């Protein structure tokens, strides 16, 4: 078990476990976290998981963001840059919910415009956007349509009238990861996802109406189309059962070929294969397809939200819910740094490209990419901006959210529903939840402090806060 003395403080809030700590490590393992946060980590297994990541063939960089907590194989909050030429790709470095991610819609409304209508808006969105366990959506995708969704992502939705070109422009990878191949996705995965397009799911997925309550950088906020008192809508969801099955399929497949490639695996959930192998390429293409499903999912949900707002507010302005940005926080991307190609695995971590990155929308290139960081239910969320430091220090990566500290079981046992509901009422949050149980599991007390997470990435200069968002209404399964 790792101890405090095994870590070296590289600079304030940046810690390193040297390569010499364990012989199989191929690089040092770095963690971005406060001293207090690090002390809390020493009692759990996430640092061991990070050390395991540093053993993967071809890995040149392994780190964890301050929202680190225990995952499967990789810790949540983990980032690994692995050489594409001779390194591996690992489904555990992406996670079961492929392209779980966040989208923020900017509205033309101030909080005064909508405060009296929040209950109606929340009710309408709960009605129009299926959420909760076992809730399918209005789309039943047959084989042909599924192939198009997996291949085209947001583009599929736009072609069918569920969005505009602008929606794609302000989505990571323009909502359509080019490496996708639906033929690499199993029939089981396609069946699991066949009725789930346009659904939120359950657990920590949500739609939240928020108010911009603080501007850290008014110029960058203006570039992002954000202003004080503005109402925004945040969507958090992913690839649903389709993505879960893709990961399941490939973790099993890669475990079955580990002796073929003579890969030392300290943890079966780190199962991997050489990126250039048939198995590695098949997973990459299946993962890209699942990522496209998630982007199409968030696009359909955007369409449903726009319709809900129009129905309630009955104003033309409700047509103008525009995408500020959409980020993936569980994905593996083929990216080039200093002329070399890497598979950058981000599992519970967000791409945070700095200014002048050609991959981000032209309008944002002068300032950098929005980094969307949801807090837990009832706490602040943040929009940050990527930095040049992130490009040189973390392979263009930053944090993704708050990170759990209480298990669902403990949350349900230790938090009182009535008290929680009262707290949310006092905080002024309208809640539409599928179950009391679900609400308890996602209570703010079950999560780490998102303010501390944002503070850590700001100190490390890998992302900069732009705006702080306060919840007004939350809709969840």
């Amino acid at each position, binding site marked *: 078990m790792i101890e405090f003395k095994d870590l070296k403080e590289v600079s304030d809030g940046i810690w390193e476990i040297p390569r010499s700590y364990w012989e199989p490590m191929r690089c040092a393992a770095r963690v971005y976290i406060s001293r207090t946060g690090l002390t809390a980590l020493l009692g*759990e297994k996430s640092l061991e998981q990070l050390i395991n990541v540093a053993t993967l063939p071809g890995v040149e960089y392994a780190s964890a963001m301050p929202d680190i907590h225990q*995952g*499967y194989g990789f810790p949540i909050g983990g980032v690994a840059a692995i050489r594409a030429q001779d390194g591996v790709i690992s489904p555990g470095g992406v996670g*079961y919910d492929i392209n779980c991610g966040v989208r923020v819609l900017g509205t033309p409304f101030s909080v005064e415009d909508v405060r009296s209508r929040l209950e109606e808006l929340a009710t309408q969105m709960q009605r129009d956007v299926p959420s909760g366990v076992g809730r399918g959506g209005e789309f039943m995708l047959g084989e042909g349509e599924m192939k198009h969704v997996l291949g085209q992502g947001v583009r599929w939705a736009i072609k069918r009238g569920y969005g505009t070109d602008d929606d794609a422009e302000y989505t990571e990878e323009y909502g359509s990861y080019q490496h996708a191949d639906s033929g690499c996705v199993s029939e089981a995965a396609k*069946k699991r996802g066949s009725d789930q397009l346009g659904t939120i799911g359950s657990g920590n997925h949500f739609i939240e109406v928020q108010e911009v309550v603080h501007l850290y950088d008014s110029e960058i906020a203006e570039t992002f189309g954000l202003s004080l008192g503005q109402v925004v809508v945040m969507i958090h969801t992913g690839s649903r059962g389709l993505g*879960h099955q893709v990961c399941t399929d490939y*973790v099993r497949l890669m475990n079955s070929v580990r002796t073929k490639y003579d890969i030392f695996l300290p943890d079966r959930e780190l199962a991997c294969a050489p990126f250039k192998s048939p198995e590695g390429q098949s997973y990459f293409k299946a993962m890209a397809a699942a990522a496209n499903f998630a982007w199409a999912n968030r696009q359909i949900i955007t369409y449903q939200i726009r319709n809900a707002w129009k129905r309630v507010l009955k104003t033309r302005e409700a047509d103008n819910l525009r995408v500020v940005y959409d980020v993936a926080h569980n994905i593996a991307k083929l990216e080039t740094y200093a002329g070399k190609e890497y598979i950058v695995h981000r599992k519970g971590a967000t791409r945070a490209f700095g200014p002048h990155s050609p991959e981000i929308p032209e309008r944002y290139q002068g300032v950098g990419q929005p980094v969307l960081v949801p807090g837990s239910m009832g706490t602040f969320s943040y929009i940050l901006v990527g930095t040049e430091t992130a490009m040189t220090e973390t392979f263009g990566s930053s944090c993704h959210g708050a990170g759990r500290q209480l*298990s*669902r*079981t403990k949350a349900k046992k230790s938090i009182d529903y009535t008290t929680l509901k009262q707290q949310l009422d006092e905080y002024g949050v309208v809640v539409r939840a599928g179950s009391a149980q679900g609400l308890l599991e996602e209570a703010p007390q079950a999560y780490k402090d998102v303010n501390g997470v944002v503070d850590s990435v700001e100190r490390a200069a890998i992302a900069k806060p732009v705006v702080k968002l306060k919840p007004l209404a939350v809709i969840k399964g």
Partner: protein
Amino acid sequence: MSYEFVGHTADIQLRITANSLSALFRDAAEGMMEYIFGAEVVGETHSSTERCEVSGTDLEDLLVAWLSALLLLTQVQYVRVASVMDVQIGAGQATAQLALVPAQALEEIKAVTYHNLCIEEQNGRYTATVTFDL
């Protein structure tokens, strides 16, 4: 049957103890179904039976394959595995007859993981702890 649920930070673990491998696999299935659908099997009308056959490279992989196959059934057919009969484990394969009833899930499991999974046998008693990603 003998199983219990153990809280895990982001997920849930099912700890199973049984007198044979086939009982372990059966009880693991029933435990998973209890988590998803609740303790009571409601409305046993219109039940159907289905044969399940999975393969794995070792016992742990076989258990993951088994539970993953049952999870898939619940999610694409919207059924609960009401009972598991005639479980046979051997030569990298597990087979069984399943009784299925239509049911509404109360909880969602994303996946069955290999996390810390080890099937141990001592004095004829088998134990395993399976972690489900929620």
